[in-house]
């Protein structure tokens, strides 16, 4: 998970990341960041997230929870 959090730090272009961070509130949030996020979750966990799922996944914590629930 720490390795994955480092990837998130890179994607969101921040110095650190916490579970309470709201994904869409990052300054870097745009369609490319969305694609990067989908791609990294896919590459790291082999989980395919649909863009529309980010209506439900609000925080980093939600994302981590979704991943642990759907890990194969």
């Amino acid at each position, binding site marked *: 998970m720490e390795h994955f959090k480092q990837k998130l730090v890179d994607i969101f272009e921040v110095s650190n990341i916490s579970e309470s961070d709201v994904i869409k509130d990052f300054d870097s949030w745009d369609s490319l960041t969305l*694609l990067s996020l989908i791609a990294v979750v*896919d590459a790291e966990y082999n989980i*395919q997230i649909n863009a529309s799922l980010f209506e439900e996944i609000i925080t980093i914590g939600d994302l981590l929870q979704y991943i642990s629930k759907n890990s194969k």
Partner: protein
Amino acid sequence: MRLFFKNKKITSVLSILPENVVLFEDEMENYNFSVNQSLKLKSVMGYNKKRVVTDGVTSSDLCILGLEYLFKEGVINKAEIDAIVFVSQSPDYIMPPTSNVIQGKLQLKDDIICLDINQGCAGYIVGLIQSFMLLEQSAINKVVLLNADVLSPKVSKKDRNSNPLIGDGASVTIVEKASDESNIYCSIKMNGVGAFSLHIPAGGAKMPTSEETAILIEDSHGNLRSKNHLVMKGDEVFNFVQAEVPGIINDVLEYSKLHKDEVDYYLFHQPNKFMLSKLADKIGVDRAKMPANIVENFGNASGATIPINITFNIADKIKESSLKVCFSGFGVGLTWGAVIMDLNKNTYIQTINYN
């Protein structure tokens, strides 16, 4: 539209790639993007290296080098060529056909059909179908299918939608009559309502090039391009591919009565890595069976991507056994299609560089 052919085979596939390599990082500063954003773009889309011609090299130059190589190697001789099908979005001239120019330069016989086809990303599918149709004639035994595109001069260096992915390249595919009974199944559709999702506005009769068409204009995403440049509406193309391509693959599978697992390789046109992995998931095909590594190594050379995919990814495998393959191309037109056929063991598969 479903099309069926038999007693025809591909006997050789040769890719001709410009030797000149351009790295994504070499051009990154041209884009209206932060370094971080550019690197994200690189990582998601799988951009890295692409092959681009040096100034003045055209589609016919690549094809002629390829054909001369095949003559020298004894893969085909001049007298055997009964037809040339040249598929490109970047012909040498508006007039005459580039296929005629190639026939003349190589001094091929005049008992021949030379045919130019204006097609892009689905150009290999359209070219194969045309070649199979020509081979239905008793006078035609061997067709040389040329897929060549030199689109790098047509892309604005300041357009991050298109410039990072566009590469140049060509291929020669020899398609000929076969005595074996193997069947070839095709499914193809076209819809010109979406014709302007991928286009070059100026240069034809509707908008001749002028000083005005050469002026760079910034779009709403900060990309700069002129009317002489290629425009790709990425979101429209992505949606089109995800909406239409799984259906055409299912259709050709159903037509061939094959289960998707019975196909050894899905050799698709190569827009970018992201789009291809989404496509593999949606069709339900193991990603290992659908190579997505052409853009990162060579760039997207329009209609030549499927043959480049063949020569890069299955050159070794074809030495071990025959393969059941599914080709699919989709894009410009809009056009989308697929072909399921066998590639026989020891089909001649080779890559050469153009310098």
